[in-house]
Every structure is written in C-alpha cells, then in structure tokens.
C-alpha cells in the first residue's frame, strides 16, 4: 500500500503521488507514515541523482511533490512530531549575487535529508552570516554564488566569521556557477561541492 506512494514519487509520477496521498489520508493513514514515505522516496531520488540517472528537473519536481503532499497532510497533523535533525546548516547566496536556483535546490536536498536549514536568501552580506551563525550555532555554513564576483564575497564571509571568532566552530562549503576547488582555497572554505547531493554528503560527513 504505502510502497505505491514511495514508487510514485521516486518515479516522478506527480498526479499519481498526490492521488495516493489523498486516498491514504481518506483511509485514515497516520500523517507521519505518509511523511516517512516521502523521506524514503527522497532517499531513492538522491541515490539516482548521485548515480547520474536523475538531474536538476527531477530534484525540482520532487520538491514540488513534497510541498504539495505536505500541504495535504498538514491539516491532519494534530501536533508536530519532534523529528531528530542531523544538524544545522546556515545557507545563502553571498553578497552581490542574486541567483538562487542552485541555492534553493541545495537547501531543499539538505532539508529532505534531515538537516535543519536556515536559508538567508540572496545577496547576503558577511555580517548576516555572522549574526545567524552566532544565533543558531550551526555545524555547517553553505555559501552559494553564480557570478565571479562571488569569489571575493565568499572570501569576505569566511574572513568575517574568522574575525567574529566563529570560524573554528563551523565547516564551510562553497558551490555554484564557476566555483571550484581553486575558489574554495581562495575563499578559505573547507570544501567545494559540485551539486546538491555533494552538499548533502559533505554535511553528513561534518555532522557525524
């Protein structure tokens, strides 16, 4: 029964996934079970992405399906179940850059894989990262940038964290656009991730 929902999501059958969710809710299936199915499906989606079978469109559609399903499920949840998170990630597109498609996919994949994600949005100044890191004390800071101007903004953000005495308490990953290992070294970050699943893998390593 529930396998059907996992399969529908993992196979990118949107309408079917929503129909099954409605059916399950109508039959009195506990909402937590449906959300567990979503997580199981996202495991498969993530694996297929890593294997090069799925790509950005599949991640975007999976995000759409999960949002629609959680909207359907929400009214049936009496009290928010405490879900143990793997760790906290402060995420944002660095100063001067307003691109957010890559950053949003990274945020969604981290969230779907059990991380508490604090998304600061786009054009985020170093001070805002510092402030959020001080407030929520994450294990991970994820800096996104599409344009070449982001290299310097990443560097400034890392330096600001250093100046605030917070650098040693977090691991910092960078990614997006033309960002690579070279930029990671230049910015003084800890690692570069090529895609959203690389971000998940890094975050997992760093929160173990």
């Amino acid at each position, binding site marked *: 029964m529930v396998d059907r929902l996992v399969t529908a999501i993992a196979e990118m059958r*949107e309408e079917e996934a929503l129909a099954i969710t409605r059916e399950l809710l109508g039959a009195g299936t506990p909402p937590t079970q449906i959300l567990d199915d979503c997580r199981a499906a996202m495991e498969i989606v993530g694996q297929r992405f890593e294997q090069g079978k*799925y790509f*950005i469109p599949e991640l975007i559609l999976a995000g759409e399906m999960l949002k629609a399903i959680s909207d359907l499920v929400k009214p049936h949840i009496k009290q928010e179940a405490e879900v143990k998170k793997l760790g906290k990630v402060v995420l944002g597109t660095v100063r001067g850059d307003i691109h957010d498609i890559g950053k949003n996919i990274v945020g969604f994949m981290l969230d779907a894989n059990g991380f508490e994600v604090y998304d600061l949005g786009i054009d985020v100044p170093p001070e805002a990262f510092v402030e959020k890191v001080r407030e929520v004390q994450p294990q991970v800071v994820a800096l996104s940038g599409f344009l*070449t*101007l982001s*290299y310097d903004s990443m560097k400034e953000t890392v330096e600001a964290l250093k100046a605030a005495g917070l650098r040693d308490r977090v691991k910092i990953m960078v990614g997006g*656009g033309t960002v*690579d290992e*070279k930029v990671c*070294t230049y910015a003084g970050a800890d690692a570069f991730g090529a895609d959203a699943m690389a971000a998940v893998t890094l975050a997992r390593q760093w929160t173990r």
Partner: protein
Amino acid sequence: MNEEWSRLTPAQKLEARFSEWSSAPGVQFATPEAERAYHERTQMFRDATQLKKPVRVPIALNVGIFPYAYAGVTVQDVMYDYEKLGLAFKKFNQDFTTDSLSTCIFGAPGKVFDILDYKLYRWPGHGVSPTSSYQCVEDEYMRADEYDQFIADPSNYFLRVYLPRIFGALQPWSMLPPLTDILELPFVGASLIPVGLPPVQEAFRKYLEAGQAALEWIQAAGAIDGWSTANLGLPPLWAGISKAPFDTLGDTLRGTRAIMLDKFRQPAKLLAALDRILPLAIEMGVRWATNQHGVFAFIPLHKGADGFMSDEDFRTFYWPTLKGLILGLVNEGVVPWLFVEGGYNQRLDVIADRDIPAGTTVWIFDRTDMKEVKKRFTGWACFGGNVPASLLQAGTPEDVRNYVRRLIDDVAGDGGFILANGAVLDHARPENVRAMIDASREYGVYR
C-alpha cells in the same frame, strides 16, 4: 537578400560572408599596420573555423565587465556615460590586444532600461552594486497556461502580454488589440481606439523616448568600437546573435524552474513552443549577421549543460531545435559561435553530429574536458576554450601560463582551435589576462 543570393550554395554564402568581413566594409584604417593586422586576424579565424592551421592560435576573449574596473570606472558609470564607456574599452583593447575586437555593446544603455522600467533584470544602481554586472530576476514571465497563446502567435503574445509584463512603462500595451485585427476599412477605426487611450499614448511616448536613447547609445558605442577596429586592426567577431530555443523559453519566458516542470507536466506543448521559436531564432541570427557584415553568430548555451537534464531529455528537448538553429544558420553561410557555458562532458557524442557540415561551426567550451572534445571534433568542427574563470581570478600568472601551454600542447596541434576564456572575464586579475594572451603568442605559433 536578393535572388542571386538565394541561388548560392551554403558554402558559397559562407565564402561571400568571409570575403565581406575581411574586406572591412566602411572601415578607414588609421595606419597600414592596422589594416594588415585586421586581414591577418580575420584570416586566422577563417583558417581555424575551416579546420586549417592558422599562422598561430587565434585568441578571443569574452570580457564581460572586466574593462571597467581595469580602467577605474564602475559598471554604473559606463551604462550612462558613454565617454567613460569609450575610455574603458579603448584602453582595454589597446592594453590587451587579442585577435578580435572586444566590443563595448554589451555595456548596455541604462537610460533605455530606466525609461522603460525594465523588470527582468537588476543592474548597477537598480538593485545591484555600482560595480556588479546586470543580473536576471528569474520568474514565470510567461505563465504555465499561456503556451497555446504563445504558440498561436509569438509576436502578438510578446506585444500584448510579455512586453507589458517585463517593462513597467509598456504595461498599457496589454490594452492593444492584435495587429491582425486590421483587415479592411471598417476595422481600422475600431482597432485604433485603444491607441488613443491616455495610458497607451503615454506608453508609446516612453517607447519613442527609449528609442531615441538607444540611438544615442549605439552612435556612441559604434564610434568606440569603430575606433578600436580602425586603430588597432581588431575585427569584430560576433555579427549575429541568437539563442537555443530551449534557452529562449527557459531563461526569460518560463524561467529555469518552470521549464523543468513543463518537461513533466506539459511536454507536448513545450516541444510545440520550441518548434515555433526555431524559425524566429534562425531569422534573427541571419539578419544580424547580414546587417553587421560579419560571419559569426554568437549563441550562448545555458540550460542544456551537464546536470541540467538527462541525456534522453537533452536529445528530446534541447538538442533538436539547437541543431535546427545551427543548420539554419549554416545554410545561410552564417557560422554559429557556440559559447558552451558550464560542462558539456555528457553531451559531446550528441553535439558532434555529422549532419552539421565540417568546418562550419565554432564551439567555445568552459568546464568540458578538452581532450575529449578534440577526439570528437578533429576534422569536423573548430573548437576552443577553456581557461577557467576561477584560474583567471584566483590563480597566479604562472598558473595561467602553464594552463595555456598545456592546453595548446594537448589539443591545438592540428589547427581548428581558438584560445578563449571559459566563462566571462568579469573579475579576473589583469596580470592573469596578460599572461593568457602572452602565453598564446609564445606557445601558439604553428610551424
């Protein structure tokens, strides 16, 4: 194009365009040296395109906003002050003389955008810092349920739906009737009624004002580029411009997220829209190339890169209309200059398509393995690249030198190669750009 032109074969058309380009129509060279350099340079690009060995590896840069900071002005300055635009580009072309003109026309006219209240981008002084490049604000400017309307008549859709959305000043155009209403005498008066409405009149006034501002800009920009060509012998490379239909729809109409979802939710309409765009894309590339007396049509590739979709989706949604565009341009003797952004490692077997005649296209790569490119492209298409933006900004001149040397050693030996930067220069270090140019001169000579 006249009847005589239509009787030429694609190869003859290409020959005619190369001849016209190398004859530098309308250019009064300042010195015989400049004129000689111009001819040598056009010959180098011609040889590379046609898979021969030029005298040396030609170098072409996509400079972005690099020239401004280098000249000590901001991006915001040059968008409004064309003297500063000229100062920056003349200085750049003089100090970093490559083998082609680095044109100033991408340093776009801020006044035009201001007058029209352009919503699709943020530019210096309008949402991004004075030293930043313009940046796109992604959104669904074309909505999911508007495919039928778009497919039925793209021009009508642009006039009455899309342009009113992306330009605040043209919002009243949404009140206009389709131009195709104007059929016979009794229809004329009725069709013109909305044009008389005060907001529509105001929108047209803004449109005329923007046109005037655009003309002022192009007169200044044309003179700047003309100076660099006449004095430095730098040939303008990109006469035409066009886009892969999937990018046309995905970049600024539907947006990245939405077009990816359309692929699942309404694939047939997506494909029909791409087919509808194709002839428009070909016509745009050919028309510009002809008007500008050039050979190459610049085509930046965006949403087909590795990771953006599966191989199957690439073959289904991205490639057919890009291939159609390439063939359409080649058929008219225009050489597509494909600026292949991101990685294309998974796509090489698809794009090295032998339906495209040998020696008629140029492919500039970024994060693609150039040895793999060479395996597939030698004897078929000119390729180039791929000095990384990260290296040019975060590396040292020595790193850049070594990279260029290795690249030339690895892939340039048989000719048909152009040295270029992989992504736009923007924030590169000047000494690294210099190292790239010097290395190309030192290691790129064919014996």
